[in-house]
């Protein structure tokens, strides 16, 4: 049984097929890359998985259970967490509170306040933000805000983590750090789907890559296969 499975997932926005008939799966412990030109429907696919939108038609299954059309908060409590392409932190709250929210609400069994605090501190240490714990989140740099989003998502104790352009806008050093972070998360046993434009990152971290274009899946395979795929190069790398 796959961890997450999508069958013929589609959605239309006013005549425009943002995602059409995409089938995919991800197995426990995998790191799946999702690439494609801007506007290819990657983020929309994330939104479908996290139930911002309901696919029409299409079915999503998590651990064999149909999750199509469930409320976002239930999806989260089932163990699917995500970050956002444009950071959506709780800007006026202290960094620690951002993470605490994830910890307090992201699980079916809500931990005690002190326990949540402890978890949050640990997670902030994990992503390297423990020093700025009490500053308002809006004052962080973009890179740190993205880390905060990761920490917040991890606080919900996910089995599946969806990272949306984690490295966009980061400089090469930061990208390297972010890649490390992704590996560490993977080593914790959390399955990851990531959307990424930084090819280097995706090629080196992901075990498998899906390429979307105009809402359709045009290729799927190992990084090597993708790098050599003619369709992909034509569409994506612009040769």
């Amino acid at each position: 049984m796959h961890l997450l499975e999508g069958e013929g997932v589609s959605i239309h926005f006013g005549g425009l097929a943002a995602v059409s008939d995409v089938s995919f799966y991800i197995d426990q412990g995998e790191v799946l890359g999702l690439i494609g030109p801007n506007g290819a429907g990657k983020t929309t696919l994330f939104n479908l998985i996290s139930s911002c939108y309901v696919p029409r038609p299409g079915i999503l299954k998590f651990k064999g259970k149909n999750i199509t059309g469930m409320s976002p908060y239930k999806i989260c409590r089932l163990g699917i967490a995500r970050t956002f392409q444009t950071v959506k932190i709780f800007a006026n709250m202290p960094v620690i509170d951002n993470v605490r929210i994830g910890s307090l609400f992201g699980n079916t069994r809500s931990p005690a306040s002190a326990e949540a605090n402890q978890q949050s501190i640990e997670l902030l240490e994990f992503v390297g933000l423990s020093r700025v714990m009490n500053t308002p989140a809006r004052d962080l740099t973009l890179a740190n805000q993205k880390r905060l989003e990761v920490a917040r998502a991890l606080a919900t104790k996910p089995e599946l983590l969806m990272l949306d352009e984690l490295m966009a806008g980061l400089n090469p050093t930061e990208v390297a750090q972010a890649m490390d972070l992704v590996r560490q998360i993977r080593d914790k046993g959390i399955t990851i789907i990531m959307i990424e434009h930084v090819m280097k990152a995706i090629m080196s971290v992901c075990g498998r890559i899906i390429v979307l274009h105009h809402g359709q899946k045009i290729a799927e395979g190992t990084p090597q296969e993708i790098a050599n795929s003619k369709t992909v190069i034509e569409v994506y790398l612009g040769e």
Partner: protein
Amino acid sequence: MLEVSNISTFYGQIQVLWDICFKISDGEILALIGANGAGKTTLLNTISGVLRPNSGTITFLGQRIDGLAPHAIVELGISHIPEGRKLFSDMSVQENLEMGAYIDRAWKHRRETLEKVFEFFPRLKERAGQLARTLSGGEQQMLAMGRGLMSRPKLCIIDEPSNGLAPKLVQEVFQIIKSLREQGITILLIEQNVRQTLEVADRACVLENGRMALEGCCEDLLKSDHVRKAYLGL
């Protein structure tokens, strides 16, 4: 023609641009390359007056334009074709084009310019009466570019024209950009499609994290290891 020196821009509390300097000379295509969120669009918005730089100067044809309102900058001859097309979706194609010629200087000649633009984009002429939002993606991009030309600009700033277009259309867009230069319009271009951009442009700047990382003519950049690794995925 356009000289940007030591520009720093903030978005609220967050500094997005640090000390950006570059120049564009008459008749060239300058490409700005950088990852998402590197500050490219912010830089363009700073030039066209949507944002104000916190420090630094921008001069256009010898006149300082930093701190001017967008409409005043358009009147000086800079046309900004924004990212994501930003068409007036409830107006017809023709009306969108006319809006492009809103400034006094261009309004007088709007009929002639319109003819020219229609020559350039014959598809738009066919669709002149349709609402902009009913156009296909490629047509919308053409409309956005056509609208940008209606103000008879000296400098045209184009932000991600190939965004979300099919490969064939992307080729077409680049063809158009080339022919614009042939018409004597200077172009400042932002693209994600690094390889094609570098082929079209004369010179390019690489923006990383709000700072200017590299600058040079395109052949050199294409050969640069940094660019190859970071942007071409090689």
